[in-house]
């Protein structure tokens, strides 16, 4: 029996359900096309893009990157804690991950407000169209992810998950990590590459 468990653990395995991984593959591919469309349009209209990028704040993008990376780390810790049956530690880690995600949303709201007050909207040129579409779709992913994480945090507190049953949490974690790694490319693309 012990040998079977060791053999099962050493087998290559995707955490969570195959459904979420199919979604992650399709969704990240869609973002990949957005990124390519952005850089090719930027190459064709470089002066316009460079001028528009002057309004982009390194600081808000930097803070949001730190928040999402930390949130992703805390979610990974929560999954690890559940595997060790440390359910209280897992609940705390997941709660902190949700707090970091909410911080991302607050910074994003301030950033959008700043742009709109300065008179920049989706109709202000190609750069702002890409900026609002890419970051907007990503922000929707963040809000969906935060809802899923909050529900999972509540379930953790109610004892729904254990080291023997955590596929739902693993699926939620995988989705959140995707939201994180997509932002890791969006940040340099829109804010840093000039």
């Amino acid at each position: 029996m012990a040998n079977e468990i060791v053999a099962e653990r050493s087998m290559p395995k995707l955490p969570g359900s195959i459904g979420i991984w199919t979604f992650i593959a399709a969704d990240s591919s869609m973002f990949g096309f957005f990124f390519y469309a952005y850089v090719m349009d930027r190459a064709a209209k470089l002066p316009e893009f460079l001028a528009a990028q002057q309004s982009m704040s390194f600081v808000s993008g930097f803070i949001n990157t730190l928040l999402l990376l930390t949130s992703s780390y805390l979610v990974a810790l929560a999954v690890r804690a559940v595997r060790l049956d440390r359910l209280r530690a897992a609940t705390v880690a997941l709660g902190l991950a949700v707090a970091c995600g909410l911080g991302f949303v607050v910074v994003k709201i301030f950033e959008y407000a700043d742009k709109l007050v300065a008179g920049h909207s989706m109709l202000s040129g190609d750069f702002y169209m890409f900026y609002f579409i890419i970051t907007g779709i990503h922000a929707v992913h963040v809000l969906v992810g935060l809802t899923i994480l909050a529900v999972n945090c509540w379930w953790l507190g109610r004892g729904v998950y254990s080291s023997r049953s955590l596929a739902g949490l693993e699926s939620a974690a995988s989705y959140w990590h995707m939201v994180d790694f997509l932002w890791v490319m969006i940040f340099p693309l829109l804010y840093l590459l000039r």
Partner: protein
Amino acid sequence: MSRLLLSTTSLVWIVLIVATCINIGMADESRPALMAFGAVVIVSVAAIKIRLVIFHFMEIAGAPLPWRLFFDAWLLAVSGAVLHGYRAGLA
């Protein structure tokens, strides 16, 4: 708690934070001569960060080979496309 925190996961998080600071340092618009080289560094560092998230946080390192190949191919395609587009803009 220390068993949780003293892990590869925590080390990966520290590397990710340091790499983010390196990328901010490279993005200096006042030094245009650095920008072509800087763009390669910025995109490469972003790609390394994404691979760390995918392989460690998402645990793809322990996934079946086709999934590992898919994510490496995605990362290569996206990084290549971004650098190709950036270079086209400089030309």
